């Protein structure tokens, strides 16, 4: 009798099981975010009652700090990791809902100015990062990843570019680590610099949206300054995100011409695939709000829903930032990223101040 060969069948993970797997992490995000909110309310009141001089620390910072504390001491246990990774989902859902607080006229006015600033920022950042990478003798594709990460939108841009130019895993993890470390640094330094320079909410929000790389960190850096600055940081950052397809396409065509990446077939389909769809969702909600599809109370409810979504995002920003892991990635890409980011921050600050004088904000 012939042996019966049993071919093991790989069972796909059931959607219900995948959903169950994220629950512990999502609950952890909610718990940390809510603890941040409670700390904001109670620490200030306690300090005031005891006549202590204590700065008013907002829930955004508490949530990030609590997340950082857990991630860098006990670490995030395996059971929570899938759910913690959903912080990007909450960020994007929060941005779409935030659209209800923008009228279309504001978007067209501010979006026009920010589009101009974003175009200048992207061109300047890519040129400078490319120059710097060559000075430090980094590998060409690593330079591309760092340039895209710092010019456009952090981690998403690096992942999109990695696939399009066939970059090494090592290069992309270097770039992602550098961008995340610098994003965490920007989170704490940008509000301090903004207050030191007495920047208005508008100028600061536009600056944070232009200069902070990752969308989550740009949103948090804006919200740490003020509610109005947070709104503007999201708008400008979303404008930057909308450019991702064009920049990745240009690099894909360049590397394909060098024989080091696959040729791009249908360019329109490529652009659509890379375009961040949450930007369209944000615009759609804003159009609906402009044409009064929602009444005043409903706009308030949507704005609060957006705040809750961001609360989970800020907890996730802290939880996924592990300084030990970042240190392991090496110094040179980090040095290039750090020098580049400082120059881009100064350059964009100059742009914002100049544009403020020109357009009156």
């Amino acid at each position, binding site marked *: 009798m012939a042996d019966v060969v049993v071919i093991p069948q790989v069972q796909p993970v059931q959607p219900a099981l995948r959903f169950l797997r994220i629950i512990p992490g999502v609950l952890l995000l909610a718990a940390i975010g809510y603890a941040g909110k409670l700390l904001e309310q109670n620490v200030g009141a306690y300090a005031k009652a005891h006549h202590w001089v204590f700065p008013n620390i907002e829930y955004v910072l508490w949530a990030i700090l609590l997340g950082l504390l857990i991630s860098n001491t006990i670490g995030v246990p395996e059971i929570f990791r899938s759910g913690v990774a959903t912080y990007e989902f*909450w960020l994007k*859902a929060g941005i779409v809902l935030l659209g209800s607080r923008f009228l279309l006229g504001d978007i067209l006015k501010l979006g026009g100015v920010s589009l101009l600033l974003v175009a200048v920022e992207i061109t300047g950042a890519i040129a400078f990062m490319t120059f710097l990478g060559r000075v430090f003798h980094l590998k060409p594709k690593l330079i591309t990843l760092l340039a895209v990460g710092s010019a456009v939108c952090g981690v998403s841009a690096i992942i999109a570019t990695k696939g399009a130019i066939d970059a090494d895993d090592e290069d992309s993890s270097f770039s992602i680590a550098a961008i995340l470390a610098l994003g965490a640094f920007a989170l704490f330094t940008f509000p301090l610099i903004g207050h030191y320079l007495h920047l208005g909410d508008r100028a600061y929000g536009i600056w944070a949206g232009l200069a902070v790389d990752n969308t989550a960190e740009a949103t948090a850096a804006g919200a740490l300054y003020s509610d109005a600055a947070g709104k503007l940081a999201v708008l400008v950052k979303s404008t930057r995100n909308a450019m991702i397809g064009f920049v990745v396409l240009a690099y894909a065509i360049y590397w394909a011409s060098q024989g080091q990446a696959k040729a791009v077939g249908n360019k329109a389909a490529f652009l659509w695939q890379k375009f961040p769809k*949450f930007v369209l969702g944000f615009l759609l909600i804003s159009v*609906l709000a402009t044409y009064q599809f*929602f009444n005043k109370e409903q706009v308030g*409810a949507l704005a*609060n829903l957006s*705040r809750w979504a961001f609360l989970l995002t800020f907890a996730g920003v802290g939880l996924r930032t592990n300084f030990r892991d970042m240190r392991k990635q090496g110094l040179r890409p980090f040095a290039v990223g750090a020098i580049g980011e400082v120059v881009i921050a100064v350059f964009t600050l100059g742009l914002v101040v100049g544009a403020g004088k020109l357009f009156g904000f």
Partner: protein
Amino acid sequence: MSAQENAAPLKKPWRLSLDDWAVVVALLAALLVRAGVFKHIPW
């Protein structure tokens, strides 16, 4: 011609990306608020 060359490329099943899900969930939430299912969201 080898079997590998003859094999038709496997078509990936169409799936929503994280981005798409975020938009769908946010729009659904907005519709529920509009329909009055969620009247007041506290902060």
